[in-house]
């Protein structure tokens, strides 16, 4: 029993695609986290690698989809079953994929756009610019105060007293300038003379000595504190000195100021490149989602294969049964509705096969009965003239022996002729019943027909045989002797159908039925044709309309064609002619 099982190959491919899908998801996660990491570390995104991978993935998937689409169209053009259904399934899957992915894409990009608009609004810009202005004003005020303080004559007089009056002078100075955090007085050689205020703001002696007079560079310490300083030299009766005034900015002032300028910088960048940024986000989204969408399409190809496979199997099984192969069965391991359908189909074919065998048996008995009847009839027909001739001889011999010799010759001739006919009849019957199995070998069709036609060269004046419609190189695997007999019988049949002459045309074409390729041979005559009422009897043994026919010619033809796994049928129009069609397998078995 032949059968069809779901191949495990597609399951392996499907499994492979699922693994590929998981791998792609993992890669997307890795890359997206890499991008996020790059974003958080303010590094340039490794765009080249990502773009290359996305393009390579997409190209590979597009190639695979292209092959599937090509195969789908090729299968469609060759009329394979299930193609239209698969095409509709693919469209369905595609619509589902687009319906789910497009809103997601639009939603994501829109969300980013909205977030950007919200986070980077004009209010944010105003706040940032305002904050920076406030910070700069505060900073500038500190600088101005420091510069003013270092130039103030009253302050200088207090400083001159500081080395002598000490703490009292410092407190007076603090009252005059509350911003001041510390004061250091150094001798001209850098030796520290006086220091008051917050020690966190003190400057190292060597830096104080080497620094130029005026505003010093802002010092940012590792603990986040920033210190503004101004240096002022002066001279009194005790010698030359210089003082360093220090103002400690609030902790993390520098960091916050830098963050503020950096955020403002980001805002300005976005303001300048908002459209490009949204485009970039969309493209980046596409880089990640497009390969996934392609993979989904590829998976849907395989899924649709799995869905239509039982239907295709059923269609193929139906076709095989229609071609006469009742041993075909659909094998399925699953337990879904389609498997139940396959089981029902198998049971139906099994019952059909039983019924067919029963009918065949009945037909066989009926055929033998008919053959026996016809054979009895054909044997009985000559027995009557034989009996009559024998009785005539006996009667003449008894009643007028003198006239016996005159009757003897004609009666014996009649008996011999009828016995010869009987012999011929039985010989042909024996040949028909013992027709050997065909010994197939490659043979050129045209040569076979020409050889068969040459036997009937004496008919050339009456009948014209045309062989133009047969390719010179058309070779078939047949029993040459049997096939010559087929053509000879058909030529004889046609010649008998055209007593007044006519034309006999041979033609051959390659046709495809299901998965099998056949050579279709047409034998067309311009004879009297066959009446429709005789169509069903044409191939019956011993059926003939000719006075001297045995009625076995077309039966032999049918039998030989059948033995070659072929088919024969005919079309006929009374008064126009008859065309016999013979389909023989065109490929070697």
């Amino acid at each position, binding site marked *: 029993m032949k059968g069809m099982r779901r191949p495990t190959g597609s399951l392996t491919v499907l499994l492979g695609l699922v693994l590929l899908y998981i791998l792609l998801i993992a890669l997307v996660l890795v890359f997206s986290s890499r*991008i996020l990491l*790059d*974003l*958080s570390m*303010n*590094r*340039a*995104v490794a*765009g*080249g690698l*990502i*773009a290359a991978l996305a393009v390579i993935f997409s190209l590979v998937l597009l190639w695979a989809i292209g092959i599937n689409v090509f195969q789908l169209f090729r299968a469609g053009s060759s009329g394979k079953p299930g193609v239209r259904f698969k095409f509709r399934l693919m469209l369905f899957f595609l619509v589902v994929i687009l319906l789910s992915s497009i809103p997601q894409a639009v939603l994501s990009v829109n969300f980013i756009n909205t977030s950007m608009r919200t986070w980077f609004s004009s209010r944010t810009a105003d706040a940032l610019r305002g904050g*920076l202005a406030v*910070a*700069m004003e505060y*900073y500038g005020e500190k600088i101005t105060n420091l510069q003013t303080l270092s130039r103030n004559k009253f302050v200088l007089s207090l400083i001159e007293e500081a080395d002598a009056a000490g703490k009292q002078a410092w407190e007076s100075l603090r009252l005059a300038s509350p911003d001041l955090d510390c004061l250091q007085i150094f001798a001209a050689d850098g030796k520290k003379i006086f220091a008051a205020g917050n020690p966190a703001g003190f400057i190292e002696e060597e830096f104080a000595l080497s620094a130029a007079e005026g505003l010093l*560079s*802002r010092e940012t310490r590792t603990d986040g504190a920033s210190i503004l300083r101004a240096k002022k030299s002066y001279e009194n009766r005790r010698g030359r000195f210089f003082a360093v005034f220090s103002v400690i900015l609030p902790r993390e002032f520098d960091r916050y*100021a830098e963050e503020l*300028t*950096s*955020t*403002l*910088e*980001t805002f*300005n*960048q*976005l303001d300048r*490149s908002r459209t*490009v*940024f949204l*485009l*970039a*986000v969309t*493209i*980046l989204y596409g880089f990640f989602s497009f390969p996934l969408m392609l993979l989904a399409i590829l998976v849907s190809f395989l899924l649709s294969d799995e869905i239509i496979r039982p239907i295709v199997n059923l269609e193929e099984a139906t076709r095989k049964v229609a071609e006469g192969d009742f041993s075909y069965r659909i094998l399925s391991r699953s337990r879904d509705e389609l498997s139940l359908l396959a089981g029902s189909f198998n049971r139906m074919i099994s019952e059909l096969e039983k019924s067919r065998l029963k009918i065949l048996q009945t037909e066989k008995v009926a055929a033998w009965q008919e053959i026996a009847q016809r054979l009895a009839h054909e044997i009985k027909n000559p027995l009557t003239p034989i009996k009559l001739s024998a009785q005539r001889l006996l009667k003449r011999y008894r009643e007028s022996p003198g006239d016996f010799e005159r009757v003897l010759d004609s009666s014996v001739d009649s008996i011999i002729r009828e016995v010869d006919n009987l012999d011929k009849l039985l010989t042909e019957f024996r040949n028909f019943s013992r027709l050997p199995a065909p010994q197939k070998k490659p043979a050129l069709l045209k040569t076979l027909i020409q050889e068969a036609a040459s036997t009937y060269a004496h008919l050339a004046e009456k009948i014209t045989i045309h062989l133009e419609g047969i390719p010179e190189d058309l070779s078939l695997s047949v029993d040459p002797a049997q096939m010559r007999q087929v053509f000879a019988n058909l030529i004889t049949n046609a010649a008998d159908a055209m007593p007044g002459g006519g034309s006999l045309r041979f033609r051959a074409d390659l046709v495809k039925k299901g998965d099998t390729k056949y050579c279709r041979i047409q034998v067309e005559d311009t004879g009297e044709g066959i009446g429709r009422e005789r169509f069903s009897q044409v191939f019956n043994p011993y059926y003939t309309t000719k006075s001297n026919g045995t009625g076995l010619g077309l039966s032999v033809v049918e039998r030989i064609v059948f033995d070659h796994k072929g088919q024969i049928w005919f079309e006929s129009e009374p008064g126009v002619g008859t065309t016999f069609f013979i389909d023989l397998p065109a490929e070697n078995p």
Partner: protein
Amino acid sequence: MSGLEETDLRQHILGGFRSRIQFRVRVYRENSGILPLLGDDMLFEAHPEQTGRWDPFSSSYELRFHDGSRRYFSGWEAFYRDFTELRNFPVPEFGSSGIYILVQARFQKMVFNPPLNILSVFLNRYAVASPWFRLDRE
């Protein structure tokens, strides 16, 4: 470096944007015999970066060096000179036989802040790269 317009760069920095130069430093040893077919051996590679910006508080150009230190410049010329040069970058010693150094500078006129740094993939007009320069160690 072709494509690096000084005036344009100054306007950018004064406009409140940061610029960056990344130097790609590679130290190679030449292979002899049949080994040159396999290429020279790379002994060392580093990508020191320098970032420059305008500091509105100190009204000066701030240059942040590869080692994290900063320097402030009141004048553009000094800032630009130091910004486009790689100084005091320690290259390990590998002897002198067949040793050479390849250096390339990649200039990014505008350093995009997150999340805008994905634009660096798409906006090539903000980036310029010099050819590789070879320095032989004698």
